[in-house]
Structures are given as C-alpha cells and as structure tokens.
C-alpha cells in the first residue's frame, strides 16, 4: 500500500469503519511506515485534545443577554 492510499483511509480507520481486509492492510502499512503511523496516532490525539478541552466561558454580556431573553420569553410553561 502506498502512503497516499493509507492517508486517504486514515479517517475511516480511526472511526473503525473499514472492512477487515483493508484494516489489516493499513495496520501492516503503519507497522512499516513510521510517518504514516505518526500521522494516524497524532490525528487521533489532535481530535481528542479538542474534544477534551472545556469550552471557554460565555462572554459576560452574551450570558447576561441570553438569560435576560430566556427570563423575559419563558414566562409560561412549554406548550
């Protein structure tokens, strides 16, 4: 397998969406190719870093407006 073919399948590999044959082919390639192995490991980590990061606090004025609107508009039970 060429590196370009491996890279094209990295996302499907990460999501576990490959058939057994192609998955084994990729795993074999990652064992042989340090670059592609680094790319798949780092790509997974990069996504994880983002998913694990806490979103920033709402800017104060945005939060004030949000809760003001909700209190003003939601004065009756949901229909």
């Amino acid at each position: 397998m060429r590196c370009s073919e491996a890279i094209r399948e990295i996302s499907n590999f990460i999501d576990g969406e490959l058939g057994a044959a192609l998955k084994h082919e990729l795993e074999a390639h990652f064992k042989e190719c340090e670059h592609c192995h680094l790319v798949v490991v780092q790509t997974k980590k990069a996504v994880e870093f983002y998913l694990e990061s806490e979103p920033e606090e709402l800017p104060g004025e945005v939060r004030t407006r949000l809760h003001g609107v909700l209190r003003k508009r939601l004065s009756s039970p949901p229909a």
Partner: protein
Amino acid sequence: MCKPIEIGVSTLCANVGIERTGVLAIMMGTPNGHLTSTNPHRLPSTIAREDEHLLVAAAKKGDLSAFEELVNRYERKIFRLTMNITGNREDAEDAMQDAFLKSYSHLKDFEGTSRFYTWLVRIAANEALMRLRKRRPNQFSLDEPVETEDDLMPREIQDWGPGPEQRFAQTEMREILNNVIQELDPDYRIVFQLRDVDDLSTEETAAAVGISVPAVKSRLLRARLKLREKLAKYFQQRGGAN
C-alpha cells in the same frame, strides 16, 4: 426511530435514540507502537444523566429554574457550536438564544430516548446553519474540490514527544485549540464540529449541511488532518524551544 419536527426551515430528528459510541472508536498509539482499539467515554455518568432527566421532567412542567439549570450546564458548549458553524459572534449569539427558546417551547416533543443535550445540539446546529446560509448563501460548496495526491499528504511529521499537551497551561492549550479550529476552512470546520464534536452521524451531518455522505467523509478527513498539522506546529515549536 426518529420523530421529525419542523423547526425553522429544516426538519430535525427530535428523538434520535441512538447512542453513538463510535465517532472515535479509534485506534490508540501505544508505547510499543502497536495500535489497539479504544472506546472513549464521551457520555456523562449515570448520575449526571439521571440528574438531567429530572431537570428535563421539571422543565416540562414549567419549572423555569430547572430549565435555567440546563442552560447553565450547556450554554458554553452550545455557544462554541454556533460560533464554529457561523464564524460570526452576532449570529452565534442569536442562534444560541433561539436554540434554547425553541428547545423549551418544543420540550413536549422530547421523548427522552436520547440525551437532552443531543437533542439540543440538533436544534442549535439547525439555527446556526440557517443563519450561515442567510449571511452567505454560497458558503457551502456542494462539489468536492479537485484534489491531487499532494493535497492530502501530511506535512509537519515529527514525534511530539510524551504528553505534548502538558507543556502548556490549560488556558494556553484551550487558546491554541481555539485558534487552530478557527483557522480551518469553514467547510471543514462545520463538518468537524457536527460530526466529531457534537457526535452527529455521518448521515445526519450530510442532511444538516446539505452535502453528500462521501463529501462529509472527505471533509472530515481533511479537517482532522489539518487539525493535526496545525497543532504539530505548536507542539514542535515548543518542543524545540525546550
């Protein structure tokens, strides 16, 4: 089992009862270089889910303080979602406000087969996408770019060393991640936000954005590769400086 509800111009799947654990049912790199399967826990604890269930039940009966607690819990995530989709603070704020208002007024349609947050995400994504389309009608390129092999080939391939994130303070790391996400092409950022961050399925993402399933997969691949490449610049720079 999906009960569609009409909100705004699009149809949402209001009670998606599928817990997707496979958005990153991914392969971990291990110290010996082997790849093993992992199943990251993205869902809250049982206690948190039961707590959410109680809050939703109270909100359905008109308990505004219970609904406000749900808002407090999710406002940051929902604002990040709407910001990452619209790329515009004013639109993001409006989309967030309307998402919470609509979620309250449609609470009767929420049957509790999925998490409330999952349901809320679909409403917020819809609100944000509507605003994006109004502001930039030609924002979404429906066709995939003509690509060469070089387009996808990763650059910046160096070992990050152990625990690259530990070299940064939490706030600094958050700022870096926020910067690299904002630098992504909007087409890629939106798909990444919906598919990876908000856990929509590939099919749901395709329907929400109005592109094909292969286009979602292609954009997700590019988004993830770009995210890695942009983060690598920070990690390698800092690694070199130390």
